């Protein structure tokens, strides 16, 4: 039977027990917390011979065992209590190794806690050997490394993800603690420790080593360094960067350098590419500059830079090669000063700096250092404050153009001569007819006078004069035609012109071809060169004649034509306006299309070699275009050819062509005239005429006879002299006469059409000229004019 006390005691002891148990539990919990907080290490001793394991409370707490039991000793199998199933065989192996004589025990493994959590621990141990080198004890420490493991994992992941390797080097050590990522960056096999040499040998010899052989004495801020390495595995070159900081080492008095390494190859490569492309760019610029410089140096054209003030800033070597100037002598000179005197204005225009209108192209001749003249075609470009001039030497082209013009003129002349040649036969025949008329009439008159028959003399005299006049007019025409003349565009009445060459045309065409003309009264005047037009018509007539070997008809039709907008001609663009059309129409063989296409080409001829230059139509074309007109040609094989010449209409007021009034021959008033003429017949004639007209005539056969008279003090109002004299010619004689008689008027007589053509070059003031043959009335008029005009 239980007493109250017993009850109390048992009750209170139970309460006490429960309280104690609670306290123990609390203490344990506190211990666990404390242990966790301290990251404390637990120790163990494994007695190999006695097969007993003893360990401290921390070891017990870590492995979840009873600390009392462990303190007193437990079977060695308790060592493996709480080790994670996946790690236990590994640790058993390692322990077995230790018991078999291995020296190093260093393992990380997991422990399972009561609450199911996992704790990473690091066990580090060794063996104690006896005299025979047999292990007798195996002991070590167990450290909770959960947090460190987590941090290490984080660090490892961070290093792998960020490809950043870490390392730590303590001063004086020949090895460096490295991370696996560090090894991977260098292409080394992953390890934890590397010799300093090994690391630094991978660095490019010119770059700074990764591991500084000598650390500074005090921590200092360290800039990043960049360097190239040769990867140990692939031999590839990579760029790496190192960053880090120095720390005081706890164990030695020196410093520790903790650093990271990362690969910057890609950014370096981009940098390099950028640098290269920049270099390439500047190289391009340099190349372009070189090229431009080449152009500047080697150009055969004149290149120059001129300021807005017109002063030359720079010239290229061509100035020396072409013009002979030293480059230095030109710089600072005004561009305009180099221009040919008459072309300063153009040169000024070239360097006129006008923002609103771009500089024009000009042809300006420059005077070379040796005084020679070179013609250049200039282009100018203004840029900023400078004008760039570019001059292309066209001197040779100019010369060629002049030669060409000369040649063309010669050709035109030869064309005419060709036409004259064509005429010669007919003209000789005509001349014979005319001479026959004259000689015949004179014969008859002579005989009739001898027979005292004066009744019909008049008729024969008229016949002789008519024949002689026709002959004179024919020679006049021929001479005028064969004269070399430049194009002289004037308002011209075409109808009388055609009438005047009708004779020539008729003879040219011969007897088997009839000439018809359609010449309306109402025709406009055309602006053209009469001489060239005659030549053109004659050429066309000759072409027509050759196209009608069996005879036919040539019609020349003149008509007024107006080109309005929208009407295009078959040849080329013609400005709208009024034209005079002269159509030369034959009934000959005509031309096929392929010939027609080439009809205006120079040197194209369908005639046998030696019978034509092939220049006829092209000359006509050239002349008509020069006149501002145009030419059309139409032809049908077997039907004939029509060549239409369109000449621009003259809009000037028609000059009143007064019909020639029969004027009385002007008479002299006793003036003294000296006649110098080597041809006695002509001299006789002229002296006779002068006397009849009431002048006092002196005569001389040449300058020898004339000079005494001229140098005397006798009165002399007029000198009439043949140009072609033996000894001094007429002009030289006149000049001599003028020395003593500066006011003396001089009338030259010449038989040379060429002389007449260049009369303006030949004649001075107070001089005039008359061409043989001349009518007496003309001579009288000329003399009177010269004596009356002031």
């Amino acid at each position, binding site marked *: 039977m239980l007493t109250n006390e017993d009850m109390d005691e048992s009750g209170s002891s139970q309460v006490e027990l429960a309280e104690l148990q609670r306290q123990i539990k609390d203490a344990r919990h506190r211990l666990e917390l404390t242990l966790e907080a301290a990251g404390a290490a637990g120790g163990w001793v494994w007695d190999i011979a006695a097969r007993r394991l003893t360990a401290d409370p921390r070891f017990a707490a870590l492995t979840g065992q009873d600390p009392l039991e462990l303190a007193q000793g437990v079977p060695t199998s308790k060592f493996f209590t709480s080790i994670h199933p996946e790690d236990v065989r590994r640790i058993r192996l390692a322990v077995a*190794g230790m018991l078999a004589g*291995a020296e*190093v025990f260093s393992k990380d493994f997991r422990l399972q806690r009561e609450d199911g959590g996992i704790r990473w621990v690091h066990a580090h141990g060794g063996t104690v050997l006896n005299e025979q080198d047999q292990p007798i004890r195996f002991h070590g420490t167990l450290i909770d490394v959960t947090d460190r493991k987590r941090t290490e994992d984080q660090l490892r992941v961070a290093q792998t993800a960020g490809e950043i390797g870490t390392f730590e080097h303590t001063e004086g050590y020949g090895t460096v603690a490295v991370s696996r990522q560090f090894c991977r960056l260098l292409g080394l096999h992953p390890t934890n420790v*590397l010799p300093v*040499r090994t690391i630094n040998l991978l660095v490019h010899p010119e770059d700074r080593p990764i591991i500084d052989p000598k650390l500074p004495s005090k921590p200092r801020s360290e800039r990043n360094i960049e360097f190239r390495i040769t990867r140990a595995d692939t031999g590839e070159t990579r760029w790496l960067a190192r960053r880090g900081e120095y720390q005081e080492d706890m164990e030695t008095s020196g410093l520790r350098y903790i650093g990271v390494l990362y690969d910057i190859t890609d950014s370096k490569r981009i940098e390099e590419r950028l640098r290269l492309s920049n270099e390439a760019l500047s190289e391009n610029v340099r190349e372009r500059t070189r090229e431009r410089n080449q152009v500047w140096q080697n150009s055969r054209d004149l290149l120059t830079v001129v300021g807005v003030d017109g002063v030359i800033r720079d010239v290229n070597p061509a100035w020396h090669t072409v013009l002979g100037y030293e480059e230095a002598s030109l710089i600072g000179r005004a561009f305009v000063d180099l221009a040919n005197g008459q072309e300063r204005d153009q040169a000024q225009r070239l360097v006129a700096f006008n923002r609103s209108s771009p500089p024009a192209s000009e042809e300006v001749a420059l005077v070379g250092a040796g005084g020679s003249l070179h013609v250049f075609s200039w282009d100018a470009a203004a840029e900023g404050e400078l004008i760039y001039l570019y001059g292309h030497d066209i001197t040779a082209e100019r010369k060629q153009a002049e030669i060409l013009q000369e040649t063309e003129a010669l050709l035109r002349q030869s064309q005419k001569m060709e036409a004259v040649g064509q005429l010669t036969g007919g003209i000789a025949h005509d001349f014979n007819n005319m001479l026959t008329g004259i000689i015949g009439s004179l014969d008859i008159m002579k005989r009739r006078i001898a027979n005292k028959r004066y009744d019909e003399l008049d008729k024969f005299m008229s016949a002789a004069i008519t024949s002689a006049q026709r002959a004179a007019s024919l020679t006049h025409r021929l001479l005028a035609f064969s004269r070399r003349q430049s194009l002289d565009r004037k308002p011209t009445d075409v109808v009388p012109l055609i009438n005047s060459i009708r004779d020539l045309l008729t003879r040219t065409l011969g007897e088997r071809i009839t000439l018809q003309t359609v010449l309306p009264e109402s025709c406009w005047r055309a602006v053209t060169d009469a001489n060239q037009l005659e030549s053109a018509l004659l050429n066309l007539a000759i072409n027509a004649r050759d196209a009608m070997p069996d005879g036919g008809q040539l019609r020349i039709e003149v008509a007024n034509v107006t080109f309005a907008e929208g009407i295009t001609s078959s040849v080329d663009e013609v400005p709208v306006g009024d034209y005079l059309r002269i159509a030369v129409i034959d009934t000959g063989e005509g031309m096929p299309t392929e010939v027609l296409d080439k009809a205006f080409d120079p040197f194209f001829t369908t005639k046998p070699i030696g019978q034509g230059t092939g220049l006829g139509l092209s000359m006509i074309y050239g002349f008509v275009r020069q006149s501002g007109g145009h030419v059309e040609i139409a032809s049908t094989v077997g039907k004939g050819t029509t060549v239409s010449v369109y000449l621009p209409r003259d809009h000037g007021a028609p000059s009143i062509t007064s019909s020639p009034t029969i004027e009385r021959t002007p008479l002299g008033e006793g003036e003294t005239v000296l006649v110098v003429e080597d041809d006695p017949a002509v001299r006789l004639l002229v002296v006779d005429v002068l006397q009849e007209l009431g002048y006092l005539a002196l005569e001389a056969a040449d300058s020898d006879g004339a000079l005494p008279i001229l140098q005397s003090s006798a009165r002399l109002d007029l000198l009439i002299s043949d140009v072609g004299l033996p000894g001094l010619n007429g002009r030289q004689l006149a000049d001599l006469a003028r020395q003593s008689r500066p006011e003396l008027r001089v009338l030259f007589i010449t038989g040379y059409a060429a002389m007449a053509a260049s009369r303006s070059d030949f004649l001075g003031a107070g001089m005039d000229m008359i061409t043989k043959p001349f009518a007496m009335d003309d001579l009288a008029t000329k003399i009177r004019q010269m004596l009356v005009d002031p």
Partner: protein
Amino acid sequence: MTSIGVTLDDLERDALTELVNIGVSRAAASLRKMVGKQVLLSVPSVEVVTQNAAAALIGQRESDDLVAIRQEFGGAFSGKALLIFPEDNSLELVRAIVGDELDSTEVASLKDEALAETGNVILNGCLGTIANMLNQSLQMSLPRVLYGDGKVLFDVDTGAETDGLVLFLYINFSVRDRNIRGYIAMIMDLPSLGVLKELLGDFISRVTADSNWAVGG
């Protein structure tokens, strides 16, 4: 014979590492006796790599010329074992072994002999221990001293098959107070590796069954 399938799993690798650890510890004990100094060992590393890679591994770590004592072994499994030093501290090792009282010419003349002897002691200790653990016996050839880089030491240049897989394990050791450090390396060809795998399996089951296995025998 195809041997591509022959690789070691983690546990086998651990077991082999432990065996080498034991062997090297024995060898280091022998070396300790020879030089009278504390010999420090690193945790061994075991890898299956190509022969080229093995040569490169040594070459990478040691850029200088190396000297090696090489012994071939045969038996249940076969291969080569090498004790490797940077050449510049091989003399230091010889001095440590033969004593500091010799002058340098004498040391130089003794060098190869001393190295061969040292290598023989260490490699025999190491391989013999491993063989014992696996209940096998191995025959060892006479040691040869070689000079050169990793390629020479591993016969990579001889034109033999070098892209085959080998077992490569190495251990860093250094002698306290002396500028001496080196590697122990072992390469086995793959047929041997197959045998080794089996032997390791047996070893693992023996060991893990009994925590006091090593002293219970």
